[in-house]
């Protein structure tokens, strides 16, 4: 029965990482940009919660979404857009610098001590089903994760701008030569990535209730690893990769004997190394139908 419990918890954590990974994957798709500062979007949401402690959740939730999306759009406009035609290495260094800058601003403003983000206290409560102890946040995480992933999927496959986004991800030059406004597509991708990051942050709170300047870094890096393990080139494998890394993180944590949990990261990254060695093209990546021309 324990294993069922582990499995449910792992699916919930996997859903959160899938949301973060989908955001990273969307931005990589339209800009070929590996955004190391993606996790700082969650950090900004976390400090927004801290700063608004005591306010109504009806105000705080939209405010978190607003702050995170605004930060995502500022990153795009101020730091990434001017470098759009630069080399991948240049863009990577820029995202690293943005991440470092934001974490330092947070440290100056709020110190490196953890700050409480409490919201949705009721979600931490649990109910029992036989031997299983299920926290409400587990169900909500899985539910919200599924709804948002489905919504993004519908957007990409059922709307005109979603089609244009897939075209830009496939070949930006040709999409632009067909009349697609690249800036509009990139901005849309950053808005979606921001909303997904805000949702993930809100659902992370019950299990990680304190925000530090490095809060987003840990989540962002792990999600990014998930994206690479899954296969960066396409959204579905990237999202599954994010899910898998969250799932594995929770599973390995549960399966490790209590005294050995300090080895969580070693075990997890060991697993990542093995997967990358066995399937360098990505765990969930099919062989391509045709080579890119």
């Amino acid at each position, binding site marked *: 029965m324990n294993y069922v419990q582990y499995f449910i918890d792992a699916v919930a954590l996997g859903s959160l990482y899938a949301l973060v990974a989908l955001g990273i994957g969307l931005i990589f798709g339209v800009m070929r940009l590996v955004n190391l500062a993606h996790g700082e979007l969650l950090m900004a949401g976390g400090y927004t919660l801290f700063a608004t402690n005591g306010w109504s959740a009806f105000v705080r939730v939209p405010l978190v979404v607003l702050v995170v999306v605004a930060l995502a759009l500022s990153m795009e406009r101020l730091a990434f857009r001017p470098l759009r035609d630069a080399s991948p290495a240049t863009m990577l260094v820029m995202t690293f610098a943005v991440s470092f800058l934001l974490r330092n601003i947070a440290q100056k403003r709020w110190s490196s001590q953890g700050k409480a983000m409490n919201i949705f206290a009721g979600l931490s409560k649990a109910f029992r089903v036989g031997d299983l102890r299920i926290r409400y946040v587990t169900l909500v995480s899985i539910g919200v994760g599924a709804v948002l992933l489905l919504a993004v999927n519908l957007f990409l496959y059922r709307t005109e701008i979603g089609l244009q986004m897939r075209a830009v991800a496939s070949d930006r030059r040709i999409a632009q*030569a067909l009349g*697609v406004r690249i800036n509009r597509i990139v901005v849309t991708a950053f808005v979606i990535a921001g909303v997904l990051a805000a949702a993930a942050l809100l659902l992370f709170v019950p299990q990680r209730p304190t925000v530090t300047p490095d809060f987003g870094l840990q989540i962002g890096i792990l999600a990014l690893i998930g994206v690479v393990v899954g296969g960066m080139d396409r959204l579905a494998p990237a999202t599954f990769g994010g899910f898998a890394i969250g799932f594995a993180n929770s599973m390995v944590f549960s399966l490790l004997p209590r005294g050995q949990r300090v080895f969580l990261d070693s075990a997890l990254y060991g697993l990542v190394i093995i997967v990358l060695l066995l399937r360098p093209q990505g765990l969930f990546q099919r062989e391509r139908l045709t080579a890119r021309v």
Partner: protein
Amino acid sequence: MTESALLEVSNLSVRYGAVPALRDVSFAVRAGEVVGVVGPNGAGKTTMLSAIMRMVGWSGGDVQFRGESLARRSPDQVARLGIALVPEGRQIFSDLTVGENLRLGTVARRSRGALQRDLDSVIELFPVVGDFRDRPAGLLSGGQQQQLAIARALLADPDLLVLDEPSLGLAPTVIDAVFAALDAIRRAGRTIVIVEQRAQRTIAFADRTYVLADGRIRSEVGPGDAGNGELLRASYFGVDDSSQTHEGAS
């Protein structure tokens, strides 16, 4: 001729770093004309089309479309002004379906009206794009992909259709089919600029053809010159740089 030109390229130059790829190219295309550009590999043909589309920057000169300079335009704006490109090597979106590729062709349309009529006529011209609408475009054969690329460009309802080496890598019978389709497109009154390495076929097809070599226009030839191998060789390999440079106007 200049005042009625649909497209006017004047002294257009492009450099890749220190390397000149296009030097002082000038020519004009009137509405309804088919203009060919031929030249050896590396002559600057693709660069010229990319420069007209604003996909590469210019180091000098200007391009005017319907009397308006494209100097400050981005590629998507050029497309929405009415120039549609069929890129070299097809470059369809192989992950997307044939139908989705066609829908992307409509992004640059200036009016939504008559879309169904254009779609019908494109499918009549290239039945394969109608038959395989739900298939991933990457699964089509090379010839079918080329037809899809032309169909996609036509759905923008462009004033000017620009084709970059449409016969590249295709079997001879498929090339015949492509040129037959282009002939139908021309008869429908569409203005066409076609860039090709296959000189004779292009010269015979176009109303007039410019020979491009080493980034310069070497000469202008007409359909009657298609069989004149001597003239072509001289143009391709350039005996005299300056005396054969043709201005395109007059």
